């Protein structure tokens, strides 16, 4: 039976997914469940986490309400839930915040809010999940949702670009450090995908501007499922020789 399994089969391994209450995180959680993973859904909004839980009915999961801007609570909560679930195999840090702010109106606290969730919470989650008394003995797989804006610039997105670029840099360092424990660390850089977060950011732009932005994508804008499928690929136990990579999932945007 084992021989017939897809290399994308998670075979009941536990994966923590942040931002699971909506958007990319929810899509990743659903796709992981389709591939035999058990998921720990992390988010702030309990009602919307329950909707994600309902969407993956039939798959074992846990819901962990957590404010990722409060870094001190992350490790204790991961350790606590691991006592219920048993060893954890993977992490997908999909939670993210964006605040559109030109340089002249930017403030340290605005940038800090984006760094707190997009970067620092992810690193603290990685630290917690990789603890030897938390992670599976075989090793594991960490995936960070970065962004095309970690690679190319965008007016008004200085803090967001900085946070996503830092994610990709941290991923490479973690990949080097954790390879000896057979822990793989990768990132995905999605382009324009319509989620609640992007709609909030795009809401400040004129309709014409949004149309121009869409037109810069050779394959057009993406859907959360497009990112989720790539996430499953990089997280899966079968992609065991991929680490330190950043995969552009952007309809060709950064290939231009």
């Amino acid at each position, binding site marked *: 039976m084992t021989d017939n399994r897809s290399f994308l089969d998670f075979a009941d391994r536990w994966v923590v997914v942040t931002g699971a209450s909506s958007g990319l995180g929810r899509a990743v959680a659903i796709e992981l469940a389709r591939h035999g993973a058990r998921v720990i859904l992390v988010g702030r909004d309990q009602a919307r986490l329950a909707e994600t839980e309902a969407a993956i009915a039939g798959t074992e999961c846990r819901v962990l309400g957590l404010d990722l801007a409060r870094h001190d609570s992350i490790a204790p909560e991961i350790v606590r839930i691991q006592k219920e679930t048993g060893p954890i195999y993977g992490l997908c840090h999909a939670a993210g915040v964006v605040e559109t*702010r030109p340089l*002249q*109106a930017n403030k340290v606290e605005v940038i800090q809010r984006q760094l707190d969730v997009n970067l620092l919470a992810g690193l603290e989650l990685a630290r917690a999940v990789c603890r030897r008394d938390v992670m599976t003995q075989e090793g594991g797989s960490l995936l960070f949702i970065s962004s095309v804006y970690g690679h190319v610039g965008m*007016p008004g997105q200085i803090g967001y670009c900085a946070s996503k670029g830092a994610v990709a840099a941290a991923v490479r360092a973690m990949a080097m450090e954790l390879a000896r424990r057979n822990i793989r660390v990768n990132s995905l850089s999605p382009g324009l995908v319509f989620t609640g977060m992007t709609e909030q950011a795009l809401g*400040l732009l004129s309709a014409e*501007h949004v149309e121009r932005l869409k037109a810069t994508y050779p394959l057009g804008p993406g859907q959360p499922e497009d990112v989720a499928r790539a996430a499953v690929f990089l997280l899966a136990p079968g992609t065991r020789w991929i680490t330190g990579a950043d995969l552009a999932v952007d309809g060709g945007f950064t290939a231009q």
Partner: protein
Amino acid sequence: MKAQDAVSWIAEVFEEPSGRITAETLRKEIPGWDSLGTLSLIAGLDERFDVHLSENDIDGMQRVSDILDILRRNGKLEDA
């Protein structure tokens, strides 16, 4: 806030020297009031006054007095 203080605040948002703009100054006369300047204004109105602009508000702003009208409509401006 008094109207004159609001005009000074608007000048600060668009990085104009204090006193160069008045309520009657047109958007096209303010170099910093471009698309990014508009985003700065949106952020500033939200943070400073808890005023959220509609798409119509944003499209309709052609002079400094239009911003003052928005503040007045939202009860943020003391009538002279």
